[in-house]
Each structure stands twice: as C-alpha cells, then as structure tokens.
C-alpha cells in the first residue's frame, strides 16, 4: 500500500459523549477519517502512527448537516467516522502522540 496514505487517512480524533462511552466499554478509539479511506488503510495507519495493535475497524459514513444561512440552505460535506478497537490493555494518549 502507498506509504503516503498513512499520513493522509486519519484526520483527527473525534471527541464526543459517545466516543467516551465506547472507549470505556469496548476499548475503542474514534477517528474522523478521509471519506475514501478503507478499513484496511485505517488499521495500518493507526498501527503505524500510534504503535498499537488494532483488532477491528468499523466505519460509518456521516451525512453532512444542512445549515441555513442568508442564501437559503447549504450542505456541509459528508465525512467518515471510524471506530477502531484496540487490543485489551492498549490505549492512545493524544496528548503524547505526535
């Protein structure tokens, strides 16, 4: 696989109440990723960048919100969210990671 994709796939951590719950219950970390990213790419990227072992990746395509502004309606772009399950006992500390 193209090595440069590793640095492009992950857009950032997704912090929400739901992500905090899934981290608690299933040791999952939630990322916002490129809409074109595949599960395999995400797995590789997370393993390489954060030096952890990934058990499973599940993805969701999120519909962009329809916002109202002074020109009427406009649509925010669609995006992809990835729930990455880590091996028991592992964790990603975003404060330390580069």
């Amino acid at each position, binding site marked *: 696989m193209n090595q440069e994709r590793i640095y492009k796939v992950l857009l950032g951590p997704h912090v929400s*109440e739901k992500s905090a719950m899934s981290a608690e219950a299933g040791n999952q970390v939630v990322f916002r990723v490129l809409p074109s990213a595949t599960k395999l790419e995400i797995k590789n990227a997370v393993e390489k960048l954060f030096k952890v072992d990934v058990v499973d990746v599940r993805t969701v395509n999120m519909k962009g919100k329809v916002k109202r502004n002074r020109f009427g309606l406009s649509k925010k772009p669609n995006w992809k969210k990835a729930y990455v399950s880590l091996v028991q006992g592992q964790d990603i500390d975003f404060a330390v990671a580069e």
Partner: protein
Amino acid sequence: MQVSVETTSGLERRLIVGVPAARVDSAVDSRLQEAAKTVKLNGFRPGKVPMKVVRQRFGQSVRMEVLGQVMNDSFYEAIQEQGLKPAGRPEIEPKSMDEGKDIEFVATFEVFPEIELLDYSSIEVKKPVSEITDADLDKMIENLRKQRASWEAVEREAATGDQVNIDFVGTKDGEEFEGGKGEGTDLELGSGRMIPGFEDGIVGMKAGEEKVVALSFPEDYHSEELKGAAVEFAITVNAVKEQALPELNDEFFKMFGVEEGGEDAFRAEVKKNMERELKNATKTRIKTQVMDGVLDVHAELQVPKALVAQEIDALRNQQMQQFGALAEKLNPADILPDDLFRENAERRVKLGLVLNELIAAEEIKADADKVRATLEEMAASYEDKEEVINYYMSQPQQLQQIEGMVIEEEVVEKLLEKAKVSEETLSYEEVMSPPAQEDEED
C-alpha cells in the same frame, strides 16, 4: 508529614519536608470532581463530561495548583511544629513531585535572630547641658532681621554684598553671543551667579555708570562654543542697592506674631522657641548616643538578609519620591544601588529587632497621659492647640505614630537608667548643629 531542619549558616535554615502522596491525590480528586460539574468541553453536554476525560484534560494543571498550595500549607505547618520564626519569604525548591509518590521539598529561609538582652551599663551617654545666653538670643534676632531684610537704593559705589540692577551685553570677537545679554537684571554681588570676574568688575561702579569688562569664560563652562572664550561685557549699572535690616519695632514684632508687649515680649517669645528647639536637639542627641550604644553592645548580632533587603527597598523608595515625576522613567536599582543604603538599612533592622525585644521584655506601653503630653508639646507651636490635638486624636494612624514616639522615648529612658550618664556643657550653637549621624526613626 516528615520534617527535618538543618542550619546551613548563621541565620539560614533549611527545612526538608515530606508530604504523603495521598494528601495531594485526594485534594486533586476532589478538585476535579468539583470541576467536572461545571466544565464545558466540545462534544459533551455541560456536566456530562466523564471523569476520565476531565482528568486527562485538566489533571496536570490542577495538580500543579494543588501542589503549590500543599507545599505552602505544609511549610507553615512545619515551621509551626518546629517553632521557627522565618524572616522574609522562604525559597521553596521541590525535590520530588511525581504522581503517586510522596512529595518532598526543600525550603530555605532565614529566621529572626534570638535576641538576648545584654548588659547596657557599658553605654556611655554624654548629656549636653546648655543655656541660652543673651548673646545667643541677640544672634537669633539678628538672623531674623536678615531674613526680613529689604533692598534700598543708595548713591554710592557698589560693594560686595550689595545688590545691583544692571543691563549687560556680551560680545565675542565683536559679535553678540547667545545668552550674553540681559536687561534690568538684579544681581547680588558676591553670590557667584555669573562667571568669575563679572561681579568683581561691577564693584566700585555707581548708578548710571557704564563700563566694558574683558573676561574669559572658564574652561569647564557648559557651552561648547564659549568654553575658554575671551569676551567683552558692556555693563550699565541702573541702581545700587544696599541691604537694609528692619528696625526692631512693633511692626517687625507683628510679623512674628507678637502683637503686644514690645521688645520684651518679642525676646521672650523668641527665647521660648529657642528653648523648645534646644530641648528637642538635646533629646535627639541623647537618643542618638543611646542608639549608637545599643548597636555597639549588639555588634555581634546577625540580621536576616531578607529584612535588610526589604529595608533597602523602603529607603530607596523614599529617596525615589524626591525625584518626583522623573522617578517613573528611571529604574530605581540603576541610579540608587543597594550598597548606598546597606549600612543604614542594617543599622535600622538591627535597632528595630533589639528595641522590639526590649519593649516586649520591659513591657513598655504607650501611656495615655504621656501621649497627651507629647501631643500638647507638638501643638504648642501652632496657633489653635485644641484643634491640632483633636485632629491627632481622631486619626488612629497619626495617633499610632505618636504612640510610637512615646514608646521610643520610654525605651530611651529605660536605657538611660542603666547607662553611664555624664554631663557636658555645650553652647547653644554646639547643641543645635546636628551631630554627624542622622536621627534614627523607629
């Protein structure tokens, strides 16, 4: 909490304090729990942020805050436990402050010296004894006349001590130069206001005369151009005035507030003032001697550097205030280095410490009657005495100052009882000319 004390040098103490980790951790936790209820974070509804996230986000900073507080608290607990009296702020240096481990820190500070009251019988005090003679009185009245002197025009040659009114034009190589011209200027001969030779040239001239004086500017003159230049001044004398002393008559007495009684009353009034000043000067002399004596007895006493530094700052600020508006532009430490004040500051700190101890030991208090008496004495030179006294009585701050004065006097008296007192006879002037050392306020 474990505490160990080391004496590093003289008054410096080093405290090593250990605080159990639980004390910090529980404090951090309770703080975080408090924060979790109110904190706002993107992605979470207010109050729904999980503890884990809160800890991750704020744990570090809260911990630092708590640590600072715990160190401060435990430092004061420690000194209380050890019965130390620190002077100035401690310097706290953390040794280990990792999470989960016991905390240890080192505090370095100075303590107040233990002051032992020594034997003060070795203090020698020379008590000045002097009386105001008629000659002193005459001299004082002469001075007062000079203060009120007026200038009267006379028809004679100008002499040193006279005041002349002149026009002058200065020329250099035949051309006028800047600042070398004046019209109707009053000049007192012998005052040295003009360049050397200028005033000498006028001596001997009469009103209406003209004269050209050839002079050269001094080498150290402030203007680059005129430094050492040979110039000519054309001087016209408009008037010569002589100093005229006012006569000793009722009008003159009235200026000094003596309305009735003529010369006798005036002399009595002046004498009264002189006596009061003499009394004060005598007191100051004795006080200075006593204070110097106390310092000599306690020559070995070490004073905390922190206190001296504080005193230096205070003295410097006092000095800076005299510069007025200019002071804001300057850095005080630059123009007035510490060393300028060090000796004085040390002296003051030392005296302050010893006197405080003395006051505590002898249980000296400001006696209400004595405060009143001091006030009355102070008010004596004012016209409306009652008002002055009432003013001081109604201002607690001012009153405190007076009480301080009274206490100080009591201390001096107590010390005088113990000291060797010998009398010396001095003339009025000798007492009035201040001793070399400044009067010590405390």
